[in-house]
């Protein structure tokens, strides 16, 4: 497939290029020359930003993240975009444009000559078969790439050289599989299975403990180890059933029927039936029934006797209360005396009314006289005593008449009479209440005695002593109960033995249940759902193993391919190094893949190799890196379709001879690759000018923050006329 080269870049508002700038590139060589801070790197960076956008800023190349804090948009521009036109040897063109939307997002679009349009930059990457990592390692030779090639960590050096060797796809595939960490997949599943096993083992231990403890109970109670089986439990159940039937026969009760157990599962049913049978034997046994009847009758009689004694005491107490009451007169006598007192009281009331009436008349007359005689000397009509005022005269007259004294005496007598009448009335009420209480208690006592008669089935005469009769009856019952006691003990002993024996059936049942659960837990591993889980786990393990092996295979393939491809360019690398450095002591440079690294050695004239890094100075390291990069970038092994190399300030630390030699190597390279060089180095510029290849030479100068650089064609660089490139057009 034909490779693409850059035909034109149109850029505005990008980093150090605030104004619109259009740069046409030569198919062979393009030189961007100018002092530092004139926008050369902004042009080369514009190409990678157009292709990869924010991804290129985020790329971590070894330990270096030079673009991480890029200020993409020029501070003096409102818009920021880059448009690149690529052309292939077949004449096919691709136009890609990226515009900054927000500080972190962009709008992208590209269009091919055949009319394909898309806003997906991944499609363009697929078309060019290039990733951002490929670009920064095999297209754009930046100073940090040089360092990575030789002095970086082995893994970063390996990645850089692998990509130069066109092994990006194998590396990407390996990395894509490694992202998933397949070795961790099964760990998570195993963790779930392990927790399941833990629960299972814990349950098993618990059930086994139950089996052990229940077995101990049976063994310590006379059972033998061979009895602790299903058959043993059945035999024991049959024995208990026989004993229950025998007991029923002894009690002369109907024969008992059981569903005798045939396995552990039916043991509980038998146990329940046995419980019912024991309850029936107890309830229907004649001796126990007789005893129960006696006990019931005794309890009833004792109850009646207690009630009788209580009633009798209450009645006697009521009688005693009436007898001991302080008022001994009858209610009739009390009534007669009260009536007499009330009559006297009424008479006094009439008298008091009369006195009060006269007193009122007198008071009114006195009032009348007081009004008339006020301020006159007044004489008392009764004793002739002189008074000084009408009020004094009135007080004197009232004293003479003594009406108030009479009234007070009458009132005192009346209160006394009324009080006595009230006392009599209260005494009468108390006596009546006591009499009623006696009547009520008597009725209750009679009802109690009737109850006693009914229980004893005889009529009690008033001369009978119910307490004595009941006490005698209780003694008779107690005699009967004593006579029954031996029979009752025998019966209860038989039933207790049966109950006790049945307790061991519970032990057998718990033992059986635990044994059954153990069998179920042990059978889990052969269940369908367990097999399903383990099947999926096996699938997961298989997938993880396959992926791990594939990663291993990809790694081996990468190394093998690297070796094969290096063999193809070994001589070229060595020659380039020899040409650029022209060292007399070491004729060449060799790169050999070793594990996860590349061994870089200098070879002396005898062909012996020595590790390069301890020997080379700073300039030689750059020469070595350039030799490797240019040889590999120019080889046919490159897997992507960008047939260009961009060298940003490649002549660092090189002397004049090395720069000349570098240009000789570049002259060879531009037969197969477009070469773009950005440099501030005039010696290098002059060497490029001397190259006999077709080229474009641009000078960048006069940079200002608001206007950016002035871009001009260098004279004598091209066969065509010298022209000022399109500059100064406002990016907006």
């Amino acid at each position: 497939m034909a490779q693409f080269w850059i035909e034109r870049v149109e850029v505005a508002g990008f980093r150090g290029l605030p104004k619109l700038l259009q740069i046409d590139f030569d198919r062979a060589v393009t030189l961007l020359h100018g002092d530092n801070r004139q926008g050369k790197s902004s042009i080369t960076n514009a190409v990678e930003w157009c292709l990869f956008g924010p991804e290129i800023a985020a790329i971590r190349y070894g330990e270096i993240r030079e673009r991480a804090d890029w200020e993409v948009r020029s501070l003096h521009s409102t818009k920021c975009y880059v448009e690149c036109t690529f052309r292939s040897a077949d004449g096919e063109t691709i136009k890609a444009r990226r515009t900054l939307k927000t500080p972190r997002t962009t709008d992208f679009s590209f269009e091919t000559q055949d009319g394909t349009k898309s806003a997906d930059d991944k499609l363009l990457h697929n078309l060019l078969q290039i990733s951002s990592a490929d670009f920064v390692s095999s297209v754009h030779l930046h100073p940090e790439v040089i360092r990575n090639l030789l002095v970086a960590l082995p893994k970063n050096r390996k990645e850089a050289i692998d990509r130069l060797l066109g092994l990006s796809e194998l590396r990407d595939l390996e990395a894509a599989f490694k992202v998933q960490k397949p070795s961790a997949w099964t760990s998570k599943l195993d963790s779930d299975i392990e927790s399941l096993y833990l629960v299972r083992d814990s349950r098993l231990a618990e059930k086994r403990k139950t089996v052990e403890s229940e077995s101990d109970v049976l063994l310590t109670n006379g059972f033998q180890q061979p009895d602790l089986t299903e058959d043993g439990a059945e035999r024991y159940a049959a024995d208990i059933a026989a004993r229950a039937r025998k007991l029923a026969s002894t009690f002369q009760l109907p024969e008992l029927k059981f569903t005798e157990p045939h396995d552990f599962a039916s043991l509980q049913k038998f146990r329940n039936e046995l419980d019912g049978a024991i309850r029936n034997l107890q309830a229907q046994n004649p001796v126990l029934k007789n005893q129960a009847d006696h006990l019931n009758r005794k309890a009833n009689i004792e109850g009646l006797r207690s009630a009788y004694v209580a009633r009798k005491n209450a009645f006697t107490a009521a009688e005693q209360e009436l007898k001991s009451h302080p008022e001994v007169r009858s209610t009739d006598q009390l009534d007669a005396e009260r009536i007499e007192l009330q009559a006297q009281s009424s008479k006094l009331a009439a008298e008091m009314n009369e006195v009060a009436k006269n007193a009122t008349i007198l008071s009114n007359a006195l009032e009348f006289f007081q009004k008339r005689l006020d301020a006159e000397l007044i004489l008392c009509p009764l004793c002739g005593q002189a008074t000084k005022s009408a009020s004094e005269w009135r007080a004197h007259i009232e004293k003479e008449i003594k009406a108030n004294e009479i009234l007070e005496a009458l009132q005192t007598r009346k209160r006394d009479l009324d009080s006595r009448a009230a006392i009599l009335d209260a005494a009468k009420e108390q006596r009546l209440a006591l009499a009623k209480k006696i009547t009520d208690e008597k009725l209750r006592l009679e009802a109690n005695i009737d109850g006693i008669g009914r229980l004893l089935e005889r009529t009690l005469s008033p001369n009978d002593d119910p307490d004595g009769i009941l006490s005698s009856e209780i003694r008779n019952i107690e005699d009967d109960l004593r006579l029954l006691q031996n029979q009752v003990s025998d019966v209860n002993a038989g039933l207790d033995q049966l109950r006790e024996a049945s307790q061991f059936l519970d032990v057998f049942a718990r033992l059986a249940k635990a044994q059954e659960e153990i069998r179920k837990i042990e059978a889990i591993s052969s269940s369908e759902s367990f097999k399903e889980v383990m099947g999926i786990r096996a699938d997961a393990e298989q997938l993880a193993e396959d992926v791990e092996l594939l990663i291993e295979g990809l790694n081996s393939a990468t190394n093998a391919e690297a070796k094969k491809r290096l063999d193809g360019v070994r001589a070229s690398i060595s020659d380039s190094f020899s040409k650029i450095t022209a060292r007399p002591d070491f004729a060449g440079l060799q790169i050999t893949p070793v594990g996860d690294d590349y061994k870089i050695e200098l070879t002396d004239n005898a062909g012996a190799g020595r590790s390069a890094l301890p020997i080379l100075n700073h300039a030689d390291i750059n020469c070595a890196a350039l030799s490797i990069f240019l040889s590999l970038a120019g080889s046919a092994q490159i897997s992507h379709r960008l047939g260009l190399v961009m060298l940003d300030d490649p002549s660092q630390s090189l002397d004049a001879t090395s720069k000349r030699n570098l240009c000789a190597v570049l002259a060879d390279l531009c037969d197969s690759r477009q070469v773009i060089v950005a440099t501030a180095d005039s010696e290098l510029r002059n060497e490029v000018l001397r190259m006999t290849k077709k080229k474009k030479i641009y000078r960048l100068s006069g940079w200002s923050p608001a206007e950016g650089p002035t871009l001009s064609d260098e004279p004598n660089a091209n066969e065509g006329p010298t022209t000022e490139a399109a500059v100064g057009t406002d990016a907006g």
Partner: protein
Amino acid sequence: MVTADEISQFLKSRVSSPEQDARIRALYESAHNVYKQRGAKGVTDEIQSHWTKLEARFSKAIAQLRKDTGL
């Protein structure tokens, strides 16, 4: 590009059976096709999706096992 046959050759002594060899070949070829269409992220997404389905099947199966056995 390296072929599935070449990958297989590198793993000749490591694979346990012809079936595993066939699976790894298929895995590689499938990943290669996905890479061509969707890049490295597409391969990562594809294998992640495969694993996620497997994991979901496992979760369902183990939930059923717990239900069946009371564990």
